[in-house]
């Protein structure tokens, strides 16, 4: 089917036979589920309800009105038309005028919205004295009054800094803004952090240091002009499928591809796609490999001298060039520690430097390392050295994980930064907010998530307001997280479901879905997209209203009646958002920040005539091996990632039919490593690290190299993060999820830890007067 070819690039459909006998067929005369179909919906789209019909349309009937909104899954930020019948969502249809997705979609955004009406969704606020108690449903008033009283008590008893908040990169910009405002204005400290801490904080740091802005340089359309692409530490076909489709289209037109990844991801080789170079590096050696690419470019004179002289500081370049030219950065030396054949490194470097417009796309495989920030800077160096910044088809592009992780960073979710990446120590910035909010803002950075947990274990941090995050499952070293949470006196979780973190909560505030509120999301290309309310919040309030009500309960005088007013406040206080308003977004469809007097139409491409920081800065990137090392006890390296059908910790996708594609996390292991350990395909294995152990089933595959194992972290029963360590990025504390020394051995079934955890979770999810809510 052409939609499958041209739009999605999967080629899962064909016509079988010919003439009158010809018939549309999925795969090799297979049913859709068993075929190569990735359920992106493009064919259903191309064939509106004659052959391919959404089951929801058959059940509910034809939609009668629709609202354009933005998908709440990944950082691509696809626009959808939510087609409704009354208050019921009939289907989500990718919107062809969507500037990020251009009418395309993936299985998650297109179909996996059923969680919003899942029976496990919590619709009433609940509180409990102790986490061993069952939950008690209470009114909103009681829940909020209780929370406010507890936080005030804790601050009175343990000090102003004993409480903090975590903003959600799943929620809107406006909601994120309110949470950090609550912390700064209401709690009176800077103890606010966000999940970007655990994913792309090194992007902010690395790109900020080199270019001057903490975001990707391009729009997605840019990929249509690229000639050579480096993908490093990202798996776009699974993590950012709609972008992957656009990239694959460009590759089918002849652009070249270099993949730097320990795994043989689909982009390395799949229908009509073949990477020119695959650099299957050992996890943890990114800096060495990227620096080695630079070594080849510098020593072979392939750098863009004109660009560098015009746009960067030449003496800094010379210093950097001397550094990368050192013999220990040569591909031959780097081969010894990365395992990547020197010739592949040389070939890739030459191709990137000489193949035309070169662009780099990267993901968490870059950032979630002890040297995550260093790799980001090494990537930025590479782009500058080859002159690949400031026009369509080039650039450095983080593929951001969560729908609004860019926005949550923009909105001042970090303990050291106010909205717009302005340091809390900057008097002028503080002054703007202090005047507007009528409070004094601390000029000292607050606590990061890991520091909050440390402080909780130490007894100095006692209460936390967590909006839309499941830190227990998503943050590294689960045991440390649970110890920190257990040590607190008031853990407030605002979410759709009783998530894993809620097992340690004292207050549960039901959250709303993206379908139930107005607001904006900012995607990986800095695009501010409108989220529009398509149905009434089933829990009674949109998340921004809950935060406002909590603020009011704490005595703050907040009176927003619509999120547009919050955006107006953001625009008034944050220069890069100066022109943004709901009216303007209505007119433009969407805009990419910076959007202000200097760039009234927004900024699809950054650093066009010069870097934001002035001169682009070359920074030396010395490779320092992680302390996480393999040895006789833990001879394998575990790295983690995602799969197409599931999203992140799976809270949403696990509550949809997407589970048919991925019922459980599996451990990918190379046949050699499996044979050595007597592990069979599909059998249970025990996965051990210095931090802990878990069990899951094995999947024997050559996608991973010998010595490397891989798993996803979508299912709480697996708890892959029990295994990961507490090592983290030197600059930003971003945890080192991607490298853990492990051992794998055959097992009979779930570990004792998993059994205990299941029981604890079951206990902690009891609700008085209700049947057990646990599944």
């Amino acid at each position, binding site marked *: *089917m*052409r*939609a*499958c*070819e*041209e*739009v999605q690039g999967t080629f899962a*459909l*064909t*016509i079988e036979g010919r003439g*009158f*006998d*010809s*018939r*549309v067929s*999925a795969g090799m005369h297979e*049913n*859709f*589920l*068993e075929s190569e*179909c990735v*359920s992106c*919906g*493009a*064919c*259903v*789209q*191309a*064939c*509106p*309800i*004659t*052959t*391919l*019909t*959404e*089951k*929801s*349309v*058959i059940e509910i*009937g*034809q939609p009668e009105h629709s609202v354009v909104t933005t998908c709440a899954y990944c950082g691509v930020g696809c626009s959808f038309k939510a087609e409704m019948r009354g208050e019921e969502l009939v289907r989500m249809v990718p919107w*062809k005028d969507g500037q990020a997705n251009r*009418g*395309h979609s993936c*299985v998650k955004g*297109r*179909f996996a919205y059923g969680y919003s009406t899942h029976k496990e969704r919590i619709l009433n606020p609940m509180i409990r004295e102790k986490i061993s108690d069952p939950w008690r449903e209470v009114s909103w008033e009681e829940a909020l009054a209780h929370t406010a009283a507890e936080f005030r008590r804790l601050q009175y008893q343990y000090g102003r800094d004993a409480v903090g908040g975590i903003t959600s990169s799943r929620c809107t910009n406006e909601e994120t803004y309110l949470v950090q405002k609550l912390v700064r204005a209401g709690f009176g400290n800077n103890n606010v952090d966000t999940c970007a801490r655990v994913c792309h904080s090194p992007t902010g740091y690395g790109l900020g240091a080199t270019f001057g802005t903490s975001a990707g340089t391009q729009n997605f359309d840019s990929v249509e002009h690229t000639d050579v692409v480096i993908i490093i530490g990202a798996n776009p076909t699974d993590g950012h499928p709609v972008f992957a489709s656009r990239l694959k289209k460009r590759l089918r037109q002849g652009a070249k591809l270099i993949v730097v990844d320990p795994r043989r991801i689909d982009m390395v080789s799949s229908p009509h796609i073949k990477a020119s170079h695959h650099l299957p590096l050992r996890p943890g050696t990114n800096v060495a490999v990227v620096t080695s690419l630079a070594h080849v470019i510098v020593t072979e004179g392939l750098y863009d001298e004109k660009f560098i002289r015009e746009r960067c500081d030449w003496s800094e370049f010379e210093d950097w060039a001397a550094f990368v030219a050192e013999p220990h950065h040569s591909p031959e030396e780097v081969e010894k520690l990365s395992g990547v054949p020197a010739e592949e490194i040389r070939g890739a470097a030459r191709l990137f430097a000489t193949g035309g417009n070169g662009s780099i796309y990267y993901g968490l495989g870059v950032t979630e390392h002890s040297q995550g920030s260093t790799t980001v800077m090494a990537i930025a160096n590479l782009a500058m050295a080859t002159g690949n910044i400031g026009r369509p088809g080039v650039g450095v592009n983080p593929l951001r994980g969560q729908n609004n992780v860019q926005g949550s960073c923009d909105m001042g979710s970090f303990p050291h930064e106010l909205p717009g990446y302005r340091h809390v120590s900057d008097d002028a910035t503080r002054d703007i907010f202090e005047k507007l909010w009528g409070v004094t803002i601390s000029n000292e950075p607050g606590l990061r998530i890991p520091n909050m947990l440390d402080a909780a274990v130490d007894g100095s941090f006692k209460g936390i307001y967590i909006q839309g995050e499941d830190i227990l499952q998503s943050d590294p070293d689960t045991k440390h997280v649970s110890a920190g949470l257990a040590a607190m006196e008031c853990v407030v979780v605002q979410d759709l479901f009783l998530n894993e973190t809620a097992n340690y909560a004292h207050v549960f505030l039901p959250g709303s879905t993206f379908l139930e509120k107005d607001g904006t999301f900012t995607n990986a290309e800095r695009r501010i997209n409108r989220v529009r309310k398509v149905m009434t919040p089933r829990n009674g309030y949109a998340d921004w209203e809950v935060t406002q009500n909590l603020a009011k309960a704490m005595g703050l005088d907040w009176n927003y009646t619509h999120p547009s007013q919050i955006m107006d406040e953001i625009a008034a206080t944050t220069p890069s958002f100066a022109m943004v308003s709901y009216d303007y977004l209505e007119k433009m469809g969407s805009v990419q920040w910076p959007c202000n007097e200097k760039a009234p139409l927004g900024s699809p491409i950054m650093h066009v005539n010069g870097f934001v920081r002035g001169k682009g800065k070359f920074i030396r990137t010395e490779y320092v091996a992680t302390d996480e090392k393999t040895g006789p006890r833990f001879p394998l390296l575990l790295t983690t990632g995602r799969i197409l059908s599931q999203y992140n910790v799976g809270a949403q996708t696990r509550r949809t*039919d*997407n589970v*048919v594609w991925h019922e459980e996390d599996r451990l990918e292991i190379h046949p050699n490593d499996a044979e050595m350990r007597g592990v069979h395909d599909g059998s249970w294995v025990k996965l051990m690290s210095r931090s802990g152990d878990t069990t899951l089933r094995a999947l024997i595959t050559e996608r991973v190299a010998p010595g490397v194992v891989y798993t996803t972290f979508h299912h709480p029963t697996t708890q892959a993060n029990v295994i990961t360590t507490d090592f983290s990025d030197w600059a930003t504390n971003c945890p080192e999820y991607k490298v853990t020394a492990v051992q794998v051995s055959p097992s009979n079934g779930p570990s004792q830890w998993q059994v205990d955890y299941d029981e604890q979770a079951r206990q902690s999810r009891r609700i008085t007067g209700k049947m057990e809510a646990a599944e």
Partner: protein
Amino acid sequence: MVTLTIDGNEITVPEGTSIMRASMEAGIEVPKLCATDMMDSFGSCRLCLVEIQGRAGMPASCTTPVAPGMNVSTQTQRLKDVRRGVMELYISDHPLDCLTCAANGDCELQDMAGAVGLRDVRYGYDGSNHVKARDNGGINLNWAPKDESNPYFTFDPAKMHRLFAVCAGL
């Protein structure tokens, strides 16, 4: 820019524009099943045919680019006859379940049948088809059951025409 005449209306469009696109710009709807904005046009449905003065045959408007001075007709009697004839063939291999079909009211096949004025299928419904499991007392090898394996959508080969028109280019 290229200036041409479509059904007597002069219109100027960028070079490389398809006749179909140019017609739309001129406010003229050419019947179609297979062309969508999301994909390259490829001319399989044979409903968007037009006549061009001085050219033989009936080219598909979706795959034929405009040319300067072209004089295009989209609604001659000959075109109407052929379109109705094509539609009659489509419907001769399509189930007659419009009233209970989930697509009723939002079906391009239905719309097009109306648009070309199809009132009668003279072939009857007893011939070879992909619609009925059994035919003339025997098993119909052309028929395949509905595929409900995907949790989100169904695939009914008995109603494949629109899909076929869209993807027959494979």
